[in-house]
Structures are given as structure tokens and as C-alpha cells.
């Protein structure tokens, strides 16, 4: 059957069933929500004054909203776009409409270009729409003239922000119903899940290959997105292609940085200008008008420096996570997985100094004595309604039942080594970075054997299994 008749058939089929296609349209607007911490500030601190910006605007001008994302170049995020520079301009005036570009070696020439942004030179910051792009000669024809004259060598980005935009689109489709549009872990399906979907806004991720004080690296997040988190509702997105996963990961990092920035900015105002603080200050005799004046002065002067520190720290910590030094690296290879090693591991597990059993229980079932205590919320100082450990997100944080043999952060020896060495960030699983690496390996060998027998060597069959497993690990 020829192609055209095929199309005709399809057309008929579509005409016969128009009802199937009704109601499918892209839902347009969405916006980031502000954190509870921001919303707890007095109104003036949130919205600012005529000439001084409040927290909401300070966040929005740096990060934008889902439909109008801002690429704040300070952040170590790959916003996307192709870097190139002006090769020749026909004449050195602002009126030029046709420019030739050259690409650094190794950068492939794009087939389509819809916009370009000047990064350096007189036009720095200007964005121009591209009418026509000739890939063969590298010539772009602009829709309208620039405000300043471009010069040879000016750095330009083609289609800047394309990765972030793609990431947003994919995130909205695949992740936001759990993790929320703002990455607050509060999407529509979140309330039915335990553990809750991650709230990215703390900038904290649990399952990382980095040491206890470092953030998650891109590789860590990529691994999570590809593999999912077994034993939780976080599914695997392995079938997405690599460039889509890269875009999603950059978007998740962007949301985490946005959350962290907002959180820290609001925190620096919270002690003096939260609604509660203002109420008690007024009670103690201060006038509200004076407090507002103080706020205005504070935002105008001190907060500026503060914002500088916050953004420097953001850029620094997220960049450091990408370095080799931040990785947890065992000093010695895995110790052979023998009965003796497992026994040593169990000794350490039960020892008073490490006391894993206090949380995970003597037989590893996640039922240690600490799980029955009532804890205080460190912020409100009130007892939690349910007994057990709580994490930085204020959720109940059950120590893992090690008998199931499901490891959320991965089951490779290095994964478990990193979990024990660096702890599980944000959760109550502490870091044991001061423990000798050899001992950590003994514990890893023990933990990996728990699903098969809690007491190493207790059953005869394990004697046969152990040497085989040890051989496999060489």
C-alpha cells in the first residue's frame, strides 16, 4: 500500500473518532511556590518595599518561574546552549543583521539556531532572535538590529538555557507529580507514599558517592534517576536517553539550588522578622513601624553581603561535589569475604563504639531500642507524635531492615562502604568516617551476609557459599 493511501486511511480513522482526541491539550502555567519559611516572614520581608526587594523577588529574579526560567550564571549548572564567538562582522555598527561565527574545536556546529546571547563585548547581555541560520558558513541573520555594535571575538551562546528548558519539560512530565513543581517533595501523589518523595530544597541528597560533608555529584543523581531507589516509590527512568537524563539532573540541581538559596535567605531574616518574632517584639514594647524601618535598612545593607555569601557558598559546595577529592575512596580493596571477616564485622556492628544495633537491632531487623523512643522536633522543641527517629525533613526515618537485602543506595561493595563511611545524608544514619577502612570492609561483608544468616557461620551451607562469594569478588 502506498504511503499516501496509508495517510488517507489514517485520516479517515481520525475523522471517524474525533472524540478520542478531544481534551488533549498542554496545561499552560505553573509557578514555583515559596517555602513555609519564606511565608512565615512578616509581609514586608516577603514582598519588600518600593526600592528594596523582598525575599520573593530576590529569589524570582535569580531563578524565575517554570515558564520563565532564569539562567543565573553564577550557579554551577549546565544551562545548555552552544558557545561560540563572532568571526567576522560586515561592518562595526549596531545595525548589522548578519554575523559569521566560529566554533571552538570539538564543538559541533548546530543545525538549527533560534536565538543567541552575547556573553562578552559591547553587546554583553543582549539577546537576539535568529531569522535564518546557515550552518555551512556559520552565518546567522538576525530578526532585528542589536543595540550595540558587535566585534570580532565576542563570546556568544546559541540557544542558551536549552538544557534547562528541556529538563523542565521532562521533569514536569515524569517527576513533578511526586516531587512537586518546585521540588518540594509535595506533588499530588506524594501524600500516599512512604518514604516521602525527596524535598530537594534542603540541597541534601541521601545516596551519594561523596564524603559526609559534600553534596551529591551529577553522577550520583544520574545513577538514582537511572536505577531508581529499590524499596521505595522512586522508579527507574533507565529508558530515557542520556541527554534527557542529563537535562533532568541539571534541572533537579537547579531546583535544589533554588530551594537552598530561598531557605538561607529567609533564614537570615527569620530570627528578627518572622511573624512570630515581630509579634513578640511588639509585645515587648517595640513599635511595628520601627521594626519595618529596621527591616528596610537590613535588607538594603546587611542582606546584600549575606546574599553574596549564600551564593558563593552555593557555587562552591555544588562545584566541590564534582571533584575527585570529594569522593569516598577506600584506602584498601575490599577485604576477602570470609566467615572470619563477617564475624569481625558483626563484632563491630554490635560494639559499644559503633553501636549499629542501637538503631538496626541485634539481628538487623531495623528494630533497635532507639526506634521506640519519642524524639523532640529540634526546631519546635515539641515531641513528635510517633516514636522513632526523624530525619531533616521531619519525616519518620526507620533504620533499614538489613534482613531484606534491599539497599536503596545500591548493593555494590563501594555503595555500602560509602553509606557507612559518609552516612546517609539528611537521614539519621550517621557517618562512620573515623573507622579504619579495613573495619568498614568487615562491616560491609557482614551487612551483605545478613539476609542469608544473621550469625556468620551459624548454618553449615554458608561455609560452602562463603569461599565462592570471596572468589567472585576478586
Amino acid at each position, binding site marked *: *500500500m502506498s504511503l499516501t493511501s*496509508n495517510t488517507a*486511511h*489514517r485520516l479517515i*480513522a481520525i475523522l471517524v473518532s474525533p472524540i478520542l482526541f478531544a481534551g488533549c491539550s498542554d496545561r499552560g502555567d505553573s509557578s514555583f511556590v515559596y517555602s513555609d519559611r519564606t511565608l512565615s516572614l512578616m509581609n514586608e520581608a516577603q514582598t519588600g518595599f518600593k526600592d528594596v526587594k523582598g525575599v520573593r523577588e530576590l529569589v524570582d529574579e535569580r531563578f524565575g518561574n517554570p515558564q520563565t526560567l532564569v539562567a543565573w550564571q553564577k550557579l554551577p549548572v549546565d544551562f545548555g546552549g552552544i558557545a561560540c564567538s563572532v568571526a567576522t562582522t560586515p561592518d562595526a555598527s549596531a545595525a548589522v543583521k548578519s554575523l559569521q561565527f566560529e566554533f571552538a574545536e570539538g564543538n559541533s556546529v548546530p543545525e538549527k539556531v533560534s536565538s543567541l546571547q552575547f556573553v562578552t563585548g559591547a553587546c554583553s547581555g543582549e539577546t537576539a532572535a535568529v531569522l535564518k541560520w546557515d550552518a555551512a558558513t556559520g552565518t546567522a541573520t538576525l530578526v532585528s538590529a542589536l543595540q550595540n555594535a558587535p566585534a570580532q571575538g565576542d563570546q556568544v551562546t546559541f540557544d542558551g538555557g536549552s538544557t534547562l528548558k528541556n529538563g523542565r519539560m521532562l521533569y514536569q512530565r*515524569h517527576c513533578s507529580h511526586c516531587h512537586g513543581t518546585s521540588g518540594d517533595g509535595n506533588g499530588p*501523589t506524594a501524600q500516599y507514599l512512604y518514604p516521602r518523595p525527596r524535598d530537594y530544597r534542603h540541597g541534601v541528597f541521601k545516596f551519594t*558517592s561523596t564524603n559526609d560533608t559534600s553534596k551529591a555529584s551529577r553522577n550520583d543523581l544520574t545513577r538514582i534517576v537511572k*536505577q*531508581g531507589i*529499590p524499596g521505595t*516509590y522512586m*522508579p*527507574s527512568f*533507565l*529508558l530515557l536517553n542520556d541527554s534527557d537524563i542529563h537535562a533532568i539532573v541539571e534541572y533537579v540541581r537547579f531546583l535544589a539550588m533554588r530551594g537552598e538559596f530561598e531557605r538561607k535567605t529567609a533564614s537570615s531574616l527569620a530570627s528578627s522578622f518572622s511573624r512570630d518574632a515581630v509579634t513578640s517584639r511588639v509585645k515587648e514594647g517595640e513599635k511595628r513601624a520601627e521594626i519595618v524601618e529596621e527591616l528596610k535598612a537590613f535588607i538594603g545593607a546587611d542582606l546584600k553581603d549575606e546574599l553574596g555569601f549564600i551564593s558563593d557558598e552555593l557555587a562552591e559546595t555544588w562545584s566541590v561535589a564534582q571533584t*575527585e577529592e570529594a*569522593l*569516598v*575512596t*577506600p*584506602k*584498601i*580493596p*575490599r577485604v576477602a569475604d570470609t566467615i572470619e571477616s563477617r564475624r569481625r564485622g558483626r563484632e563491630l556492628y554490635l560494639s559499644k563504639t559503633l553501636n549499629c544495633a542501637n538503631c538496626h537491632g541485634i539481628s538487623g531487623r531495623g528494630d533497635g531500642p532507639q526506634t521506640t523512643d519519642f524524639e523532640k522536633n529540634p526546631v519546635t522543641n515539641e515531641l513528635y507524635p510517633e516514636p522513632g527517629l526523624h530525619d531533616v525533613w521531619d519525616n519518620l526515618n526507620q533504620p533499614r531492615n538489613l534482613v531484606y*537485602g534491599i539497599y536503596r543506595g545500591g*548493593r*555494590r*561493595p*563501594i555503595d555500602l*562502604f*560509602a553509606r557507612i563511611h559518609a552516612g546517609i545524608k539528611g537521614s539519621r544514619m550517621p557517618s562512620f568516617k573515623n573507622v579504619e577502612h579495613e573495619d568498614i570492609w568487615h562491616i560491609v561483608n557482614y551487612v*551483605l*551476609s545478613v*539476609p*542469608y544468616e544473621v550469625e556468620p557461620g551459624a548454618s553449615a551451607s554458608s561455609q560452602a*557459599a562463603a569461599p*565462592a*562469594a570471596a572468589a*567472585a*569478588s576478586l
Partner: protein
Amino acid sequence: MKKFWALFFYFWPIVALYFCWIAPESNWWFPGEAMSPMGVRIESLFYLILWIVAIVFIGTQAALGYALWKSAARDEGQKAWYSHGSHSLELIWTIVPAFVLVFIALYQMDVWAEYRVQSFYPDSTREEGSVAELAARQFEWRIRYPAPGKKLSDEPESDDLYWVNELHVPTGRPVKINLRTQDVQHAFFSPQLRLKQDAVPGLIIPVWFEIPEAGEYDIVCAELCGWGHYKMRAKIVAESEAAYKAYLNRLQDEQNEDGYKAAEEETN
């Protein structure tokens, strides 16, 4: 007006015929060519039934249209004729479908047995055991292989290999997998292989298939298992015996990764 209704009932079998005709050819809601020998046999059964159903449907519609047309042509004064209670007619429309059903039941027996009855599975799959466990869960497919050279056991072993959403199998010979679910009911469906089997909580269901050609084949969930049902997709990667072995060895190496070698490279 009366004649309109007669024509109306003639119209539908024509539309149906048209769609039956174009659907397979324009690949409209059809999963393409069957990619396994069993798939080809299942497909021929499908077409057999499609033909029988199409003929019966068109025949009954034509009869209905004929009855309407004839009555519409009759003049108003004529008395109605009641055909209700005709013994021979009833015999015909009971015995003919019964024959058709018995025919289908017998005709498909060997395919069904080989497809579903374990004692009729290819001998090699019964000797070899399952090559992997495919555990459905909301909303992904978790995969467990035995360590290279070992047999899969029903309960996890310490040296098993794990992956998710991508099942590797060798081409050119029948392979069997153990289908399970970790939560609710799901269904393993591979359209290109014409293979569908429910995963039922508490059961281990062996499923076998053979893929002659290397390539990627879809796995989708075919049981409405929750809100994320639609995105419960995975793939089968069929590859030569050598590539399959290499894959398992790679997986094993990765799973034994202790992070130490990386440190060595760093100091070099």
C-alpha cells in the same frame, strides 16, 4: 425512512470490513511483525479467529439488513409473520457455532500447551531452568540473574546479579524466565513476541520465549496496576550468546566494584 434503516445496517458491515482490511496493513494499533516462532503461530491463530468473526459478523448484518429491506418493501396492510419457535432454525444456530468453537478449541491445543503448560515447554528450558527473574513492581521491572555458570534459585542468592528495566537474553534458543510481582497484579506483555502473562502475587510463573533476531523488544505492563501503569515500560535486549555472556560478566564486575581501582588510577 424504513429503507434508510435497512441501508444503515448494510453500511456497518462495510465499514467493519474496510477497517479489518486496512488495520494490519497500515499497522494501525497492530504491533508489527511477530518476532518469535511462537509469536508467528499465535498470530496465525489470531487471524483465523479474526476471519471467522468477520465472516459471522458480516453474515448476520447482511441477514439483518435483508430482513429489514424485505419488510420495508412490503405494503402496510400485510400481516406480520412470526418466525419465533422454529425448531430447525434453533438447531442450526446452536450446532454451527458449537462446531466452530470445538474446531478452534482443538486447532489451538498444541500452541496453547506449548505456550502455557509447563510439561510441554521446550526440553532445553526445562533442563536449563530460568535465566532470570523478572519481578514487577509499581512501576518498574526489577531483574535478577544468577551468577554466570549458576542456576537461578527461587529465593535470592548472595551472588545474584541485579538490574532494572532491561532484560538481556540470548538469541536463537528458547529461554525461560520466572515472572513474579512484589506488590499488586501486573502483566508481562511483549507485543512483538505476542506474549502476555499475568504476574500474580505469591506465584512464580515461568514464561518462555525464543527470539531469533538480535535487537530490542518492548515490555509493557498489561494489567491496570495503579496510576503509574502507563509508564511501566522496559525492554528485552536479545543478543548473541557471546554478547549475552559478556553482558553478565560486565554486570558481575560492576556489582563487585569496591571503588579501589579508581584510587589507584588517581595516584598514577
